[in-house]
């Protein structure tokens, strides 16, 4: 069966792409379609995760939702794919719903596992508080895979990369500026996250959060009140109304763990909670707890991480 995987390569080919290709490989013969000026070597490396070939429209940079919908639809037609896979990122949220209407294809968003024997696909619902098993009633299916749900698996070697004309038309949404947090790891993709809340008492104390994040190679995040009072930027807010993340490790300092915060982080594999209040509800959701003052514990933890990294290199 022919499977098409769309990869957003605007900022390099990363783990999300490897996961999506690995997922596709479990279902059939994978063709990857992508766009923009991406280094050919890194595209060819998608073969390692099971792609048979990569189609790239390198003329199509900063493409809008309608252009990408056309690109993916045309690529699906050209390889005869009835299953199309996205990594559930901001581009997928922009393009997959349009494609669903255009191709009359059922869209499963937030998939966390390969289709079961009965064909249903498990997804995250109720902001991580439950799972649903979704049946697709259409011939063509679109699956948007939640990042960090499956492990990338190496199964092949570098594959061919071909130019592909997406016949995408003109952009109606024009990009005028892109601001990436400098040198930081994008939060939705981070495997390790250090987060802090009101317990830190003020934005001037975030240095110790950043120090720990730097020592670990982690992204930084925060709770809702902290973003609301402007101590930290909104894009760092994790929780029900902010960003939902699923890192391997989530360290929360000075966050009580209200149900709305947990909704954004309960997909984390391991949760470490640092709090002075033994009654903080977050301890119930944590794997490791430290009853103590973040002002003392965070620097101590940073030193311990540095020591560990030094002895492991």
């Amino acid at each position, binding site marked *: 069966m022919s499977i098409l995987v769309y990869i957003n390569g*605007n900022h390099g080919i990363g783990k999300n792409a490897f996961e999506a290709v690995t997922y596709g490989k479990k279902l059939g013969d994978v063709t990857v379609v992508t766009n923009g000026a991406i280094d050919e070597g890194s595209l060819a490396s998608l073969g390692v995760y099971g792609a048979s070939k990569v189609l790239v429209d390198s003329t199509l940079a900063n493409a809008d*939702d309608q252009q990408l919908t056309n690109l993916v639809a045309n690529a699906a037609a050209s390889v005869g794919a009835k299953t199309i896979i996205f990594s559930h990122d*901001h581009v997928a*949220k*922009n393009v*997959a*719903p349009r494609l669903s*209407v*255009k191709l*009359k*294809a*059922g869209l499963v*968003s937030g998939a966390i596992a390969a289709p079961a024997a009965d064909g*249903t696909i498990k997804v995250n*619902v*109720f*902001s991580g508080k*439950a*799972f*649903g*098993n*979704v049946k697709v*009633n259409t011939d063509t299916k679109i699956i948007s895979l939640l990042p960090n749900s499956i492990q990338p698996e190496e199964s092949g070697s570098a594959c061919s990369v071909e130019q592909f004309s997406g016949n995408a038309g003109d952009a*109606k*949404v*024009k*990009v*005028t500026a*892109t*601001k*990436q947090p400098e040198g930081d*790891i*994008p939060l*939705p993709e981070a495997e390790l996250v250090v987060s802090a809340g009101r317990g830190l008492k003020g934005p001037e104390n975030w240095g110790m959060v950043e120090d720990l994040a730097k020592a670990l190679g982690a992204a930084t995040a925060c709770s809702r009140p902290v*973003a609301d009072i402007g101590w930290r930027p*909104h*894009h760092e*807010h994790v929780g*029900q*109304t902010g960003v939902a993340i699923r890192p391997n*490790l989530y360290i929360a300092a000075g966050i009580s763990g209200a*149900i*709305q915060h947990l909704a954004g982080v*309960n997909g984390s*594999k*391991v949760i470490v*909670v640092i709090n002075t209040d033994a009654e903080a509800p977050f301890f*119930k*959701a*944590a*794997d*490791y*707890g*430290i009853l103590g003052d973040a002002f003392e*514990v965070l620097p*101590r*933890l940073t030193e*311990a*991480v540095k020591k*560990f990294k030094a002895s492991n290199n």
Partner: protein
Amino acid sequence: MKILVCISKSPDTTSKIAFTDGNSKFDENGVQYIVNPYDEWYALVRGLELKETLGGTVTIVTVGRVEDDSVIRKALAIGADEAVRIDADTKDAYYTAMQIAEYAKSNGFDLILTGKETINYNGSQVAGMIAESLNMPFVSLATKLEVSGTKATLDKEYLGGIQTVEAELPLVVSCAKGMAEQRIPNMRGIMAARTKPLTVVPAASVEEFTSFETYTTPAGKSACKMIDPNNMDELVALLHNEAKVI
């Protein structure tokens, strides 16, 4: 400017999530419904702000049954001019989106706003589907929206950062945090909401692309292991050897 704000009901954020009928249906027992926070706090409030500065109307639309009118009145209390309920049981995102698109098609809206997702299904699907059906451009996960004449300038979430984009109206936008501040309805708003027009329109015939067959809830966490705050070397060792995350 004619603004359409799509709202959905969702269980209160503190609701216990459980299922019934052999785990095939959400258990509504004791559940309080609210306007989905992304729809209310960001889409509706930004729509009202634009109307207040630029003039025009704000119409609320939802797909639902008569029991959902109380949720619609809550949204009207915040300040829209009128509401429309498309009379149908909610099914999948495609079904919902096509109902709204069918209504919007004949009403010439300049701007169609939704929340970035609902907090119950988290699909992030409806807005993009409406846009494709109406052949309008779509900006997802917008954190800022300004309109000048027929041109919209927006900030949107992009790979952990922010991208600034421009598009001509008519336009579909899904709204995320940063777009506006939550408004608490005042008594005048609540009183006025009772008499604002709420039009019920019949549903169009639309197929379902997907269906939720069953649900499960996550297994509970085992007890939290407490670590001595003076012994962070132990925590690092556990994260490396036991949890294997560093």
